[in-house]
């Protein structure tokens, strides 16, 4: 049986070799990056393809038509969604594609070719666009069908940028003026330290840009864009973007914040979290500022919404020797003497006609923690006039003052205080419950909190403030 023995002695090492050498191939070469343009003949310019557009219908494009353009859109920051905007020397057009984001493959500066066979042209609020037929409109080209219509070419292609000195010089109804890349030099915005859109509700924001001629352009930003919560700069610079139209008006779309050039970032957020009203006063530097995360204030309510000499959206709280106005988004239910704690993280700190105010606070951020009493500061009118900026929104008591003015001897509008040291207006709204009451003509001791409406004033809460 030597044969068998030989078979064994041969086959075992052979199997061993098989064992070791048979490899499971799982290493892959990296494919070459396609950096060349395909050999496709372009038959129409972008402006020529717009000739097929008919208002109110989705019009089929000719089977033989091919257009080409450079992508000028960039959706990586989420301000453009499933829109690919391409332009050539004759203008730009929007291609609707159901891919998000488009930029990794169809990024800004890439040449693309659109094979129009099977595609349709229509408009949305005056903006001409290409896509698949969806009734009388065009829908997004589905992701699996995209390779049949869109052919990718070379990257890093230059594209025309129109420099616009006055938007008024452009006709929004001229189709060559839409979906083009534009630049405004020496432009500025009207709402510095506002955000580009409302992130909380994810609503789009329309902000006003003033171009170098003083004409206004709407800058529209999606609430989903990553820079929606960024602050609008305060100074002047260069603004780029994509010019679109919506029902006959121009809209400027920023691709990302790199479209803003030569602007400085405004200091819109406090450097440190704030834990007292005193700190609140110190972080205000003359322009609206957002309060840093982790901030919280606590104080005692010194205003009285029940007497209605203050809107129910507002209240005044005092902590120690400092006070501030808090303006809520909705009416509040806190009473005079309530001790409350408010999470003011990310809230806006503004001066409203000279009075410091935490603005637009959601009511849910305030919680009742107890009650308390604030002892008013005893002062003369001269003291108040001298220290009003630091004393604002705190309680004061002035003895021996005379009230004068008003409508027929009532508190309603236009009363003032006089003592030996000076004078100070009293603020009373027509809606105050005591507005129609007559005030004492003899000297009184009066208590109230210091307000400011472009000038210092005393706000009384109700008639028991006048003794």
């Amino acid at each position, binding site marked *: 049986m030597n044969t068998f023995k030989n078979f064994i002695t041969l086959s075992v090492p052979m199997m061993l070799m*098989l064992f070791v050498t048979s490899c499971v191939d*799982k290493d892959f070469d990296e494919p070459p990056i396609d950096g060349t343009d395909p050999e496709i003949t372009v038959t129409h310019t972008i402006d020529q393809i717009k000739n097929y557009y008919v208002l109110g219908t989705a019009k089929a494009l000719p089977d033989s038509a091919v257009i080409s353009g450079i992508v000028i859109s960039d959706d990586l920051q989420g301000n453009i969604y499933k829109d690919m905007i391409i332009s050539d020397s004759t203008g730009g057009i929007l291609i609707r594609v159901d891919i998000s*984001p488009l930029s*990794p493959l169809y990024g800004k500066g890439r040449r693309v070719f659109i094979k129009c066979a099977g595609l349709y042209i229509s408009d949305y609020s005056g903006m001409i666009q290409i896509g698949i037929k*969806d009734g009388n409109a065009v*829908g997004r080209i589905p*992701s699996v069908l995209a390779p049949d219509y869109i052919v990718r070419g070379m990257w890093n292609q230059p594209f025309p940028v129109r420099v616009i000195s006055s938007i008024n010089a452009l006709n929004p109804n001229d189709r060559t003026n839409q979906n083009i890349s534009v630049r405004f030099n020496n432009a500025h915005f009207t709402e510095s330290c506002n955000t580009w859109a409302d*992130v909380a509700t994810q609503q789009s924001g329309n902000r006003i840009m003033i171009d170098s001629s003083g004409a206004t352009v709407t800058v529209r930003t999606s609430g989903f864009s990553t820079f929606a919560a960024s602050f609008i700069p305060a100074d002047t610079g260069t603004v780029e973007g994509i010019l679109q139209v919506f029902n006959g008006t121009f809209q400027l779309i920023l691709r990302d914040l790199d479209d803003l050039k030569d602007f400085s970032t405004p200091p819109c957020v406090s450097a440190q979290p704030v834990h007292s009203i005193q700190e609140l006063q110190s972080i205000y530097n003359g322009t609206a500022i957002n309060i840093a995360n982790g901030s919280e204030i606590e104080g005692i309510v010194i205003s009285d919404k029940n007497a209605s000499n203050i809107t129910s959206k507002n209240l005044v709280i005092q902590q120690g020797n400092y006070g501030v106005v808090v303006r809520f988004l909705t009416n509040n239910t806190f009473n005079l003497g309530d001790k409350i704690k408010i999470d003011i993280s990310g809230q806006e700190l503004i001066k409203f006609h000279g009075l410091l105010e935490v603005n637009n606070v959601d009511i849910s951020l305030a919680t009742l923690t107890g009650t308390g009493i604030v002892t008013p500061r005893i002062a003369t009118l001269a003291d108040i006039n001298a220290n009003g900026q630091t004393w604002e929104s705190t309680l004061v008591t002035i003895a021996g003052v005379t009230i004068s003015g008003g409508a027929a001897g009532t508190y309603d509008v236009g009363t003032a205080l006089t003592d030996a040291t000076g004078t100070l207006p009293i603020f009373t709204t027509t809606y105050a419950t005591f507005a129609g009451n007559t005030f004492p003509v003899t000297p009184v001791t009066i208590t109230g909190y210091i307000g400011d409406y472009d000038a210092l004033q005393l706000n009384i809460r109700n008639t028991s403030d006048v003794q």
Partner: protein
Amino acid sequence: MKKIYYKLFLVLTVLLAPAIAHAQNATIRGIITDDYNNPVGNAKVMLAGTAYETLTDPTGVYTFSEIPYGDYRVEVKESDYAAVSQKVTANQPTVDAGKITLLPEGRKTPLEEQLPTVSLEEGENTDPSGGGVSSALGASRDVFASAATFTFSVARYDVRGYGDENFITYMNGAPMINLNNGRSVYAWGGLNDVTRNQISAYGMKASNYSFGGIGGSFNVDSKASRQRKQTQVTYSNANRAYENRLMLTYGSGIMKGGWSVSASLSRRWAQEGYIPGTFYDGWSYYLGVEKEINTRHSISLTQFGVSTINGRSTSAIQEANDLVGDNYFNPLWGYQDGEKRNSAVNNIFTPLTVLEHDWQINNKSTLTTALSYQFGKEKRGGLNWYNAPNPRGDYYRRLPSFVPFALTDTASQFAVQSQEEETIRNNPDLLQINWNELYESNSNHLETNNGVTGYRASYILENRIEDNHNFGFNTVYNNSFNENYSLSAGISYLNQKTDYYKVLDDLLGADYYIDLNQFAEQSPVPGVDAAQNNLDNPDNIVTEGDEFGYNYTSDINQFQLWAQPEYKGKKVDAFLGVQATMTTFSRTGNYRNGVYSDISFGKSEEQSFSNPMLKGGATYKINGRNYIFANGTIGTRSPLFDDAFVAPTVNNQIVSELEDVEVSSVEGGYSYKAPRLRAQATFYTTAIKNMTHIYHYYNDDVNSFVNLAVSGINESHTGMELAAEATVYKGLNVSAVASVGNYIYTSRQKATTTRDNISTAESVNETIYSENFKAGQGPQAAYTLGGYYRGKKFWSAGININYFDQMYVRFNPIRRTVAAVEVLPDGEQRDIMLDQQQLDAQMTVDINASKSFKLPTTFKKPYRNTYLVINVGINNILNNQDFINGGSEQLRVDFDTKQVKKFAPKYSYAFGANYFISVILRMN
């Protein structure tokens, strides 16, 4: 060649087996098993013609000490079995008498001589997380257990519908459990030759090595002394998860000086498995050394490791299968360089070392102690992307079914749908991964970030890593006081630390990736730092090999005590077991996550649980053939780490009201054992209460990963198991097995949903109207009819006809909430949302055949015999390719349109006809 072998053996022997001085008396040891390889405990063993007499221990081992040198005959007498005897020569201090197999009265040839038949084993399971622990129970060779684990595995049958945590596995006495998820750890794939010695206890039967789970327990004995003295080479060819398998195994048997050595090496591989785009490359090694120090002590050291690299497959929706024209459509691969590249590659290597000490305290008692250490990484690869489209070709928005949700005009919808269908049918690769586009996306975005300029990756391949460090100590004491009473008791301590983190594996042509949580970037409440995965390393520039994403550690301790007295009488056997378990666990976050900056870093609150468990059972022996038995368990167990943390990748938050899981179960039945007929009927009912489960999934409505923590899950598992096996003619056996159960949820569960991109919970304690929905997956009814013929000249052939019914798609809790159906009037749409889909019943047929040849002796030394064994098995020979063996509802629900079809269930299919051929060359 012969000389090389000899030298190898010599070297091994010299290194590992220094001879020990001769003595005048010998110790004779051996093992008694039945023809299913189960040890026979308490069997009376005698040296014929002498006064020497002993009983086997519960593992079937007997020992005669201080036997004068000479020739003897070992005789075994055990009721129900034919008497057997075997010659043994005492001519050295330790004599291994080997194994004696007891045959039921009336049967002649040991089953083992039939030589191995085809086992379905690990090749069948393509999903590494799939394969149930219960498959181990097949080792018992009990007709029912064997069917439940091998024959039914094609349908992903779970024994009694139980999850894996209800079965306990041991390797050489060391508990093999992953404490994170309660699952058994199988670290011996490819080492089939050395892990054949297994003992198991099905259901709640008493075992002497463990208190056991309610589903059963099982111990693999891979100690060197238990390996046959042989050298074996096996080559197998299959068309399953792997195509080739080569195994080399050597066993020295017990050598002079009490040493035993065994070793095994195997490789399993496939360029492409049964499912397209899958590949397999597995290496396994094993080395066992055992030294019998004296008659009372022996020590064994076992070391083995399995390295597996394989490309995964995943389930898909039927629409995609139909478009591609293949129910085995696997979306995880795509062509690169003209070859299929899989995007989801597993790479697992967790070697295990077990040191076991066996101490024969006296003739009646033993103490078995095992120390184990297992470490290593389980890497699960996958694509990740930043600010780029989902790379899955079968992403739902790419399929024709999405068109009605994208377009408003009905006529246009039809037109575009059929255009998409035609396009995909003409080019099915559209539903695969387009690697070229991924590389293209990665190679054109030059950016400067954090001081680094280069191409920033849109797509990467990442490895999600579990780096385990498991230490185990387990000691078991057995005492057979007398013929009637015995005691088993044990103490164990387990510690497991697992580091969970991600490593960037392949930049796909880009230069770097930035570690950001893109979902938090777009979240509605902006925070300056929310997008940082690690606030302490912001905007981290990641390149290949770098850690990123998340990083946390689980630390689990489990201390366990148990004791189990047992009584064996003439008419009644009974046992009672008690177990106390103390478990503590915690999570330690190593990254400070931007969304959860306050609760992500550092150690979580430590969770601590004390859980008692009581077990008992009795068998009434009506006579030698008829038995009635009943067993029961009641108690609690601690919740699992994986079910305790709501979102472990990002924070330390614990599921609210994390409670002990309450378990109660009874089983009872009747069995009949006669030489030509064995039958058993078992009824069981089990309640498992207060379970929690965490689902993680991506929800693009909220643009984030979502964690769905479901608590208050109660389940009921009730059913019957029937098995009968008869010898109908010489060599011809037939068997019939049926399992019919009803596994349902019995409570209204509570769900809390949180997101990885915003710290406020989406919903808290939402009620799930889950009562009476079917729990688990796999058939709740399974049947097989088998025939098996053993010929006279060492051949055999078998056939099984299998039928599976009562299969249900895995339940998505969110579809059974008020939010999912509110405003839907009674009617079809509401019913579709609420109903749980029942899958079609299925039939398969499996055949197998085996033939072995005794060959002329090849090498006279050291082996006397050479065998060649050929096994062939064909499963699902009728090529049923419509067999859905895994279905699950997608977790996403479209609350706007309330249409299920937008997120249709995903199915996986059982393999069509598949074969396995094995050629074994064995020298012993």
